[in-house]
Every structure is written in structure tokens, then in C-alpha cells.
């Protein structure tokens, strides 16, 4: 394992200390553990809390700030944060108008967030949740766990965050998040795995000419292995599945070409170039494009394509101001 780290056991802690030093205006850490909240709490709004395992940076702490998240609980690499940590986060961000948890659809995350919500509700804090499940690689009908939450979570946080910042009620913020979830689809591919520092072993092994198709964000194997191809060919595989999942024809979309952490922007832009061409040929209008490392899997090489079908409300919320470490919209 070749990594730029110190002790394996202190990866998360030292990363968070580094983040705090990089962005003291945006975030502060709670005493109880790896729970981060806005440096300047905004009172009188619905609070948004998210999180998950570490290793997805800038998700989730990078999206704490005005117009997006209020707090984040960060677990160990690829491991859901513990319920008691999330609970502390909920208490810290609660500003009197309810707390919405934005959870990615993983068994561990849901169990811990739900336990945390139960604890907070016992103290009279109103808590509701949305579960992001944008990954079309997993057939939701076959496997009862359903689809994973992946890069579409960033757009969910952006849009729900804009709604909350504008002073909406908890039910309205939740409805906006649910609308994103209903209209966002993602699929990813990896050409090289990631290695959890504490494990020291790669999540899967590929031959030189192989790729994992339909990966999640935890360095796990995808739905199947396939021979690699050109950027356009690989993108077509992903787009085909995404476009078959909901009817995008004639609609406007936001495109997110997301890097897994180890893929250069050069390649992501090559992908984006083709994505735009394909969408144009199908009469789908691109309203907004994001290209970059928004939801990573440590050093994994690969990318995902996310399409969010937009209406006027979603366009407005997507364009609303956001000021966080990793997502800025002016």
C-alpha cells in the first residue's frame, strides 16, 4: 500500500484537523468526535445533516455552509458514523425548525441515522429523513436493499440546502429533496480500485484491460467486470443504463461528471465532452454542468455520470447561492 498518510489509525482524525485548518471560516468540530458543523450557526432555519464514511471527500464536510449542509457526521473510511455521533450532530445543528437527515441508501448508514433520530426525538427535536438511492447499476426490484446513494447525494444536498436557506418548512425541504431523488440517476465505473488504509488491500483486483462496471462509492466491486474501452464507449455504457431508467426526452438536465478521486480532470472533461454530445443528439438540453471530484472513493480511478431532470423549481434551487468549501454558487 502506497499512501501519503502517517499512522493508519489516525487518518480520519488528521484529515479532519487539516480540513479545519483549511476552512476555519466554514466549519468547526464538536468535542464529541468527528462531527462537523457550520462555524456560524444560522438560527431559525430547518437544519440539514448528512454524512457517512470518510474517504468520499469533499463529501460530506466540504458541503457544510450557507445554502447547503448544516452538519456532518464523518465515520471511519467507508464506514457509517456511529449513532451517538450523529445524535450529537443533530442536537448541535437543530435551530428550532426541525432537522432533515440526508442519508445515502446503505444499511449501516440508515441504521445509525435512524438510531440517532430516535434519540433526538426523545428530546423533542423534530427529525425527518430522506434516503438517496440514485445508482441505476443496482436493480432495485431484485434486491430488497434497493439502490445505493452515490453522487446524486451532492445535488440533493445542494437543492434541499437552498430550500432550507430560503426559510422553507421541514416538509417543504423534504419535498424538494424527494423531488431530486425521484429525478436523479447515476452510474459509475472503475478502472483501478481503492485501498482502505486500515485494510491495506485493494477492494477488488482487475487485469490491465478490465474495469468494474456499476460500482458504488465504497471501493467495492461493481455489478460486473468488463473489458475496458475508449472514454466514449465507457460513457455510452453508463448513459445507456441511466437514460433507460427514466424518461429524459425533451427535458432539461443537470450533468455531474464525478471523479472517483484518482482520475484526472483531463479524463473527466473528455467524458463530459461525449456526454454533452450524446444528450444533444437525443434532444436533452443541458442546463448546468458540474465536472470534478464531488463524491470520491479515496484513490479509486473511475468516474460516474449523474443526470438530474430539472423543472423550474429545481433550476431555481440549483442556481441559488451556496458558499461551502467545495461547492460555490453565486
Amino acid at each position, binding site marked *: 500500500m502506497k499512501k501519503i498518510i502517517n499512522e493508519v489509525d489516525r487518518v480520519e482524525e488528521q484529515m479532519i484537523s487539516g480540513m479545519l485548518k483549511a476552512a476555519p471560516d466554514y466549519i468547526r468540530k464538536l468535542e464529541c468526535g468527528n462531527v462537523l458543523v457550520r462555524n456560524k450557526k444560522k438560527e431559525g432555519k430547518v437544519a440539514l445533516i448528512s454524512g457517512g*464514511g470518510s474517504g468520499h471527500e469533499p463529501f460530506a464536510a466540504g458541503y457544510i455552509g450557507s445554502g447547503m449542509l448544516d452538519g456532518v457526521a464523518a*465515520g*471511519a*473510511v*467507508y*464506514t*457509517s*458514523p*456511529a*449513532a*451517538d*455521533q450523529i445524535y450529537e450532530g443533530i442536537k448541535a445543528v437543530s435551530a428550532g425548525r426541525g432537522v432533515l437527515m440526508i442519508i445515502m441508501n*446503505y*444499511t*449501516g448508514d440508515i*441504521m*445509525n441515522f435512524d*438510531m440517532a433520530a430516535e434519540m433526538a426525538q426523545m428530546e423533542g427535536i423534530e427529525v425527518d429523513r430522506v434516503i438517496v438511492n440514485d445508482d441505476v*447499476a*443496482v*436493480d432495485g426490484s*431484485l*434486491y*430488497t*436493499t434497493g439502490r*445505493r446513494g452515490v453522487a446524486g447525494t451532492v445535488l440533493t444536498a445542494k437543492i434541499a440546502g437552498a430550500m432550507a436557506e430560503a426559510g422553507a418548512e421541514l416538509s417543504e425541504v423534504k419535498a424538494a429533496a424527494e423531488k431530486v431523488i425521484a429525478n436523479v440517476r447515476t452510474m459509475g465505473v472503475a478502472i483501478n480500485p481503492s485501498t*482502505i488504509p*486500515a*485494510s491495506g*488491500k485493494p*477492494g*477488488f483486483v482487475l487485469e490491465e484491460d478490465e474495469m468494474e462496471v456499476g460500482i*458504488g462509492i*465504497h*471501493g*467495492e*466491486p*461493481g*455489478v*460486473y467486470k468488463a473489458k475496458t474501452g475508449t472514454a466514449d464507449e465507457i460513457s455510452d455504457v453508463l448513459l445507456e443504463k441511466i437514460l433507460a431508467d427514466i424518461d429524459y426526452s425533451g427535458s432539461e438536465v443537470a450533468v455531474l461528471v464525478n471523479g472517483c478521486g484518482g482520475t484526472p480532470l483531463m479524463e473527466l472533461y473528455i467524458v463530459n465532452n461525449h456526454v454533452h454530445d450524446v444528450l444533444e443528439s437525443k434532444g436533452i438540453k443541458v442546463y448546468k454542468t458540474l465536472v470534478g471530484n464531488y463524491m470520491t472513493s479515496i484513490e479509486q480511478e473511475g468516474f460516474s455520470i449523474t443526470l438530474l431532470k430539472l423543472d423550474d423549481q429545481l433550476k431555481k434551487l440549483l442556481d441559488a447561492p451556496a458558499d461551502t468549501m467545495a461547492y460555490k454558487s453565486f
Partner: protein
Amino acid sequence: MKSDRIPEVLTAMSRKISEKKDFLTDLDNAIGDGDHGINMARGFAAVESRLPEFEGKDIGYILKTTGMTLVSVVAGSAGPLYGTAFMKAGMVMNGKNEMTADDFIECLNAAIDGVMMRGKAVQGEKTMLDAMIPARDAIVSAVKDGRNFPEAVKAGVEAAREGVEYTKTIIATKGRAAYVGERSLGHQDPGATSFTYLLETISEAL
């Protein structure tokens, strides 16, 4: 089993999990996200560090505190599941200083209910339940046949091991292994495996 023996069992559990840490992680790597051994070892090490607090405490207190520690330190999926299992067992043992075979069955019943409720899973989905439920059933029937506590738990361990073998033959529908679909076939479930290790340590202590 008296309450003063419980810390010894927890230490043995911690040792066993730590020994099997890499193996559990490898199992998880094949079908999940490769952190089960790491997280369990971290959790049981934390439990071990709390053993001095357990002196003179009843079994219920010890199991509940163990459960809370696992929730908080293991995190992931195994944290809430094992944490809930230990906390539910702790409620059964509230105020008790000795555990009989019947108590142990009650503990397993409560733990299984807790895991099913928290994980929204049933038997046959390639989870820890595929070891827990057969183990409980084997212990119940062994006790019915008049076998003593250690013999009954030994039968439970056998059934748990068979349950682990069974998980190789089925496709995961819960947890992260569900995402690899049919590729989960042939692999044993890490959670069923770690449960079997825990039961083995109990059996060895009896």
C-alpha cells in the same frame, strides 16, 4: 455462568476477533466494503478497555454497556446490529448475576429480534441471522433433550457453523453484499462468521 466470568468471555471475544480480523475483512472485501474485521476489532478492543468498570456489576449492566460501546465504536452496520443484540440481551439479564441455559436462550431470542428489527432482515438473506437463528434453535432443542448448558451451546456452535456454510449457497439481499447480486454466491457472510466466533468463545468458556 456467574457475572464475574463475563469480563473473561468478553476478553476472549476481543482476542478471537482480533485474531480473525484480517480473515473477516477479506470475507467482507469479497462481497462488501472490506471493513468488518477492522471495525469489529476496534469495537471489542474498546469493550476490553472498559472491563474494569464491570467489576461487581450485574450481567445486564455489563451486556448493555458492551452493546452501547459497540454501537459507538464499531459503527458501520455491525455496530448497530451487534450493539442492539448485546443491549437487548442486557435487558433480559437486568439485575441478574448468573446466566442459565434458559437465560441464554432468552438472550438469543431478544438479540435475534433486535437484529431483525434494526436490520429489517429475516433468515435466508445472507446475514448474521443465518448463523444466529440456527444456533438458537439448536440450543433450544438440545436443552429440551436434557443436555446441559455447555453441551447445548456446543450444539449451537455446530449449527452456527453450518449456517455460515449455508450463506455460501445464497445470494445476499440485505447489506452491501446485495449490490454485487449473484457475485455474492460462493462467499460466506462475514457477519454470520463473526457471530460464530463470538458463540465459540462463549462455548469455550462454559
